[in-house]
């Protein structure tokens, strides 16, 4: 159930330009990205391909961005797919498939060209279309356990290992690996990962478009949901997802934005001692599993400071939160922790209802990217630059074209969420206090009852009272 695209690394809106094109690139052919990948994998010359999503055309290429006289340029019509083996600077297993361009040994000696017979004459490993013995790049034609090697230009040293790291060691992860962007693409049991931009064999909600800042590239192990470490969906239909084995960095990063009396941003750095919810319900201890079972164990999340029952934000939610001691209320936000005043003064706040907001925030409060106002997908907008020309509906910036009393909003890139409010707060209100006071009066005096009318609602049959069973 693996996709042929698993062998490729995608670069969006990118094309390769080679000057001069020798050998010439073959003519484009019709096909999906997966069909292109199949064709490229089957061809000895092919190392990459352009895929035009609109016209479903693909063009196989005999070079990658590492090839001489080739450069990368932006082109919104193409996605560029390149064979991972030619791009990676680390090795998988014994490195037999390594096709990178390293050409020095672990001791720093320059490698001898494979075609050359001096200073070291060898007749065993001569370049061919199949064996990848190019130039003087490190390679592993004889499956040496120590990985890729080469003959050296030092007459006294015939050959030497190149010391290229294994991918699972090349990039370490800190904390729970939410920021890990390495190239491990197999799980700890060795199963290959499924690509994030495919829905087979496993359907899943983590679309790369929806979470552009989670690094959901290709089929690399990632941690988009604050699990305890990076994982991936697998190509095994019988196993939906599995953790990956990734080296933990020795040094733990210093937490950012540590605050105790207030919180900044989403409050991930909050280390205060508030331990009740907005409604006054006590929080459950993080190291307890009753009344609510959960996976946020303090020892599994050492960087999140899950002490006692203090409000914390270990998963990138919109504010600090906790599990509650009330069985029927699993979690609750701790919105009553005030936002740090210096942040309130930040340029990203809005006055009134935010109808004049002209900033560049383009994310919802849940961190989902906004849909461009002019786009028709994933949501067909009822409000657009055409319908509201005066509302400055630029790009996908948060705006308030309909004077929504709850502030700037946007359509979202999440197919399931047509619109949502943005992570922008009202500016300091009248009298400089926080807690709901804004510079727009919220309530209007009570209307006389006879002014209010209702349609087809609020009627019940008073006779239908309780009858015993």
């Amino acid at each position, binding site marked *: 159930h693996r996709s042929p695209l698993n062998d490729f690394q995608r670069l969006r809106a990118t094309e390769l330009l080679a000057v001069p094109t020798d050998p010439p690139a073959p003519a484009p052919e019709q096909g999906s990205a997966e069909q292109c990948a199949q064709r490229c994998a089957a061809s000895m010359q092919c190392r990459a391909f352009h895929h035009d999503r609109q016209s479903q055309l693909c063009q196989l290429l005999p070079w990658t961005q590492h090839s001489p006289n080739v450069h990368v340029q932006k082109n919104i019509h193409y996605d560029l797919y390149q064979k991972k083996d030619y791009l990676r600077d680390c090795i998988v297993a014994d490195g037999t498939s390594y096709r990178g361009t390293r050409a020095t040994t672990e001791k720093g000696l320059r490698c001898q060209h494979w075609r050359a017979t001096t200073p070291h004459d060898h007749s065993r490993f001569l370049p061919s279309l199949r064996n990848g013995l190019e130039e003087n790049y490190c390679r592993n034609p004889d499956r040496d356990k120590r990985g890729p090697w080469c003959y050296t230009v030092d007459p006294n040293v015939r050959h030497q290992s190149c010391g290229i790291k294994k991918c699972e060691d090349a990039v370490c992860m800190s904390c729970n690996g939410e920021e890990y962007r390495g190239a491990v693409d197999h799980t700890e049991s060795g199963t290959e990962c499924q690509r994030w931009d495919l829905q087979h064999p496993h359907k899943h909600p983590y679309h790369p478009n929806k979470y552009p800042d989670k690094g959901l590239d290709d089929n690399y192990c990632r941690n988009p949901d604050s699990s305890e470490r990076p994982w991936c969906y697998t190509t095994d239909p019988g196993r939906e997802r599995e953790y990956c084995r990734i080296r933990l960095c020795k040094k733990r990063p210093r937490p950012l934005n540590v605050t105790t009396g207030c919180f900044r941003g989403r409050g991930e750095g909050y280390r205060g001692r508030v331990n009740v919810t907005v*409604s006054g319900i006590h929080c459950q201890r993080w190291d307890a599993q009753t009344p609510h079972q959960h996976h946020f164990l303090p020892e599994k999340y050492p960087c999140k400071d899950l002490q006692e029952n203090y409000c914390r934000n270990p998963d990138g939610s919109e504010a600090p939160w906790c599990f509650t001691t009330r069985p029927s*209320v699993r979690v609750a936000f701790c919105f009553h922790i005030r936002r740090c005043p210096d942040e309130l003064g930040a340029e990203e706040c809005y006055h009134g209802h935010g109808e004049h907001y002209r900033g560049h925030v383009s994310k919802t409060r849940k961190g989902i990217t906004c849909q461009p106002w002019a786009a028709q997908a994933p949501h067909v907008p009822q409000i657009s630059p055409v319908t509201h020309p005066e509302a400055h509906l630029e790009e996908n910036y948060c705006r308030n074209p309909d004077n929504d009393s709850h502030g700037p909003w946007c359509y979202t890139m999440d197919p399931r969420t047509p619109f949502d409010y943005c992570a922008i707060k009202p500016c300091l209100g009248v009298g400089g206090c926080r807690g709901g006071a804004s510079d727009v009066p919220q309530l209007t005096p009570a209307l006389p*009852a006879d002014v209010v009318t209702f349609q087809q*609602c609020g009627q019940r049959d008073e006779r239908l009272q309780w009858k015993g069973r």
Partner: protein
Amino acid sequence: IIGGQPGNSPWTVSIRNRAGVHFCGGSLVKEQWVISMRQCFSSCDADLVGYKVQLGTLFKDPGPGDPDQQTIPIERIACGPAESQLVMLKLVRPAALNRRVALICLPPERYVVPAGTVCEIAGWGETRGTGDSTVLNVARLPVLAHGECHAALRGRLKESELCTAPLRAGVGACEGDYGGPLACLTADCWVLEGVITPSRVCARTDQPALFIRVSLYVDWIHKVMKM
């Protein structure tokens, strides 16, 4: 509901999890839309496959033969503005309106229900021995003036909240009622003025009860249903 009576509230729905267990209340404001409380759900991205609402019956766990019962799966959840603590649940299909299932009205935007208006809360939550916990219970509470409540809560009342006066007899919502309605009679119609929020103590006799003031979020509610 503590201190209530079995009663009829055709817009009050029971929200059930995958195991079919009731865990929160809600109010039917459109054939395919229910309003409830954010804290009833683990997140705004919650996977609600298997979650349902139950309408049309007074029984918490009706028998299979109950002719009026409607059980409708929940399609998706939309979270309200941050301070609102409200959510809107879209049902997979519209509820059939009949004598047992009716819509509750939404108040005008930013409408303040007059102090003293007699309203009622309804739910299948805990009764703590004060009622029949196998059926829907309803209790009446009078609205408390905003200023008075603000003083009683020593300045901790937000504009997004409204209060009812505490009753010496101990009447109020409890676990399992959260998300349910505070309905008030206005112009001969029942209007959803508040949503029951979780509180530390049930049916307090010494402090007003707090509800989320729905009239502040009517524009959001209409927008969600329209979009």
